[in-house]
C-alpha cells in the first residue's frame, strides 16, 4: 500500500519540490513529516585548520566527500523504508541520499513521509533516519579547505544506541 521511492544520486535536490510531490493528489494523508540533513560548516576534525572567516569568502568550499556502496545503498534504504511501512500506516515514503563531493550547507539526505496520522509520520521519519545512520552504506570524509587528504568521520556510538529505542 505504501508508495516507497528511494533515490541515491550525486545531484542536489529541492526539498520544496519534494514536498510538493509528496502532497500531489494526496488529500487522504493529513500529515507530512520531513527531515533534511545538510553539511555543517564546521567539524572538530577540520576546525583547527580552517580559517574562521573561510565561510564568508563567498566561494563554495568543498568540505565533504561521501562514498557509498552502489546497489547496497539503495537496497538498504529500501529495506529500512519497508520496515517503517510495516510498523506505521504510511501513505508515501521518499528517501534521497546524495554521494560525492558536497559543500557546507548542501543537502545530504531527505526523508519525507505522509500519513493520515501525525505521530506515525514523525515516528517513521525518526526511525528511518536512525537506521539510515547505522545501516546504510555511506561514509563521510571531511576535506579541509586546502584540499589535503581529508579525514574519515568516525561512527558515533550514540547513532548505534539510538536504534535501541525502536
Amino acid at each position, binding site marked *: 500500500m505504501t508508495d516507497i521511492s528511494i533515490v541515491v544520486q550525486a545531484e542536489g535536490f529541492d526539498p520544496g519540490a519534494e514536498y510538493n510531490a509528496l502532497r500531489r493528489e494526496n488529500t487522504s494523508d493529513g500529515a507530512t513529516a520531513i527531515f533534511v540533513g545538510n553539511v555543517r560548516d564546521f567539524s572538530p576534525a577540520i576546525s583547527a585548520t580552517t580559517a574562521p572567516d573561510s565561510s564568508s569568502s563567498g566561494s563554495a568550499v568543498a568540505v565533504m566527500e561521501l562514498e557509498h556502496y552502489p546497489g547496497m545503498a539503495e537496497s538498504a534504504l529500501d529495506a529500512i523504508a519497508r520496515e517503517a511501512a510495516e510498523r506505521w500506516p504510511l501513505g508515501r515514503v521518499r528517501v534521497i541520499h546524495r554521494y560525492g563531493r558536497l559543500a557546507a550547507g548542501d543537502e545530504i*539526505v531527505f526523508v519525507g513521509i505522509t500519513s493520515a496520522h501525525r505521530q506515525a509520520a514523525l515516528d517513521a521519519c525518526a526511525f528511518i533516519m536512525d537506521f539510515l545512520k547505522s545501516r546504510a552504506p555511506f*561514509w563521510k570524509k571531511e576535506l579541509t579547505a586546502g584540499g589535503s587528504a581529508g579525514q574519515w568521520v568516525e561512527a558515533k556510538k550514540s547513532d548505534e544506541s539510538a536504534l535501541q529505542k525502536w
Partner: protein
Amino acid sequence: MIKVLFFAGLREQLDCDSLEVEAGGVSTLGELREVLSSKGDTWRVALANERLQMACNQELSHGDAAVRDGDEVAFFPPVTGG
C-alpha cells in the same frame, strides 16, 4: 569466485577496492576474512579491526554467515551517512 569489495578508510588502508577470491575452501564470511588476512601484514592489521562491518550480497551479515561461489562480499568501517 567470490567478489570482495572494500570501502572508505579500509579501501584506502588496503589500497584496494575489489578483488576475487577462489570459493574453494571458504564456507563462511569469517573464513573469507582469514584468507584475506593472510595476504600480508597490512591486510592482517586492517582486517583485525573488530568494528569492521561485513555484507554478503549487499546485506549486512556476520562471520558465521555462509558464503558461496558467485557471492558478492563487502568489508567496510562503520557507516557514517545521513
